[in-house]
C-alpha cells in the first residue's frame, strides 16, 4: 500500500523568506509524486510532479521539489514566498487503479501562512 506523510500541519513564514514543506512517502512500486495547492474554498491545482528522470522538479509559481529515494522524501521549496502563496499544500503519491485511471493518495496537508 502507498502512503504519504506530511509532518507539518502548519508552517508560518514571513514574506520573502524561504520555505520548505516536508513530504515523506511509502510505496512498494514505481513512485510517482505530486504536489497540489488548494486556495480557500477552491479545488486543487497541480504545482509539480515527479515521474522519472531529474530528481529536481520545477513547478509553477516558483516552487520546486526534490525527489530523494534514499530518504523517501519529496520536499517542496520556494526561495522567497509571497502573501499570495498562503494556501494549503498537499503531497500525493499516485498508483494504478484496476480497470484504468489512477488513485492519488494524499497526505493530510500543510497550511502555509505567509505573514508581512
Amino acid at each position: 500500500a502507498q502512503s504519504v506523510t506530511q509532518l507539518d500541519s502548519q508552517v508560518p513564514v514571513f514574506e520573502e523568506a524561504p520555505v520548505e514543506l516536508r513530504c515523506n512517502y511509502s510505496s512498494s512500486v514505481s513512485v510517482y509524486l505530486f504536489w497540489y495547492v488548494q486556495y480557500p474554498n477552491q479545488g486543487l491545482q497541480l504545482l509539480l510532479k515527479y515521474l522519472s528522470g531529474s530528481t529536481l522538479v520545477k513547478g509553477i509559481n516558483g516552487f520546486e521539489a526534490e525527489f530523494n529515494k534514499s530518504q523517501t522524501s519529496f520536499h517542496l521549496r520556494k526561495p522567497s514566498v509571497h502573501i499570495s502563496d498562503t494556501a494549503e499544500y498537499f503531497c500525493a503519491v499516485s498508483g494504478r487503479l484496476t480497470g484504468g485511471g489512477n488513485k492519488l493518495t494524499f497526505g493530510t496537508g500543510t497550511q502555509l501562512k505567509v505573514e508581512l
Partner: protein
Amino acid sequence: SQTIHQWPATLVQPVGSPLSLECTVEGTSNPNLYWYRQAAGRGLQLLFYSVGIGQISSEVPQNLSASRPQDRQFILSSKKLLLSDSGFYLCAWSVLAGGPTDEQYFGPGTRLTVT
C-alpha cells in the same frame, strides 16, 4: 480547453435527508472521473471512480453511492445523510486509458454540512 463544474457550491442538509451532488466535465471525451472527500483536518480520500458510463468502483464502504449516467456527468448520492458525511467533496477527471503518471484535474468542490 477543459473545464469541470460542480454544484451546488455549498449545501446544508439535516441528518436523514437525501443528497445529490453533480459534476460535469466539458472539453474532453471519455474521461476517468473521481469523487474525493476532504473531512475537516484530514487529507483527501478517494470515494469512487469511473472509467465509463455506468461503470462505478467504490474505494471505501460508506453511506454514499455514485452514478455516471452520461459520459461527462458524475453524480454522488445518498438516501439518508449522516453527520459523518459532512465535508468538502471534490470531483476530478483524468484522461481515459491513462495511468499513474497522469495529472488529475479538480473541480471547485461542494461544501456539505450535515446538521
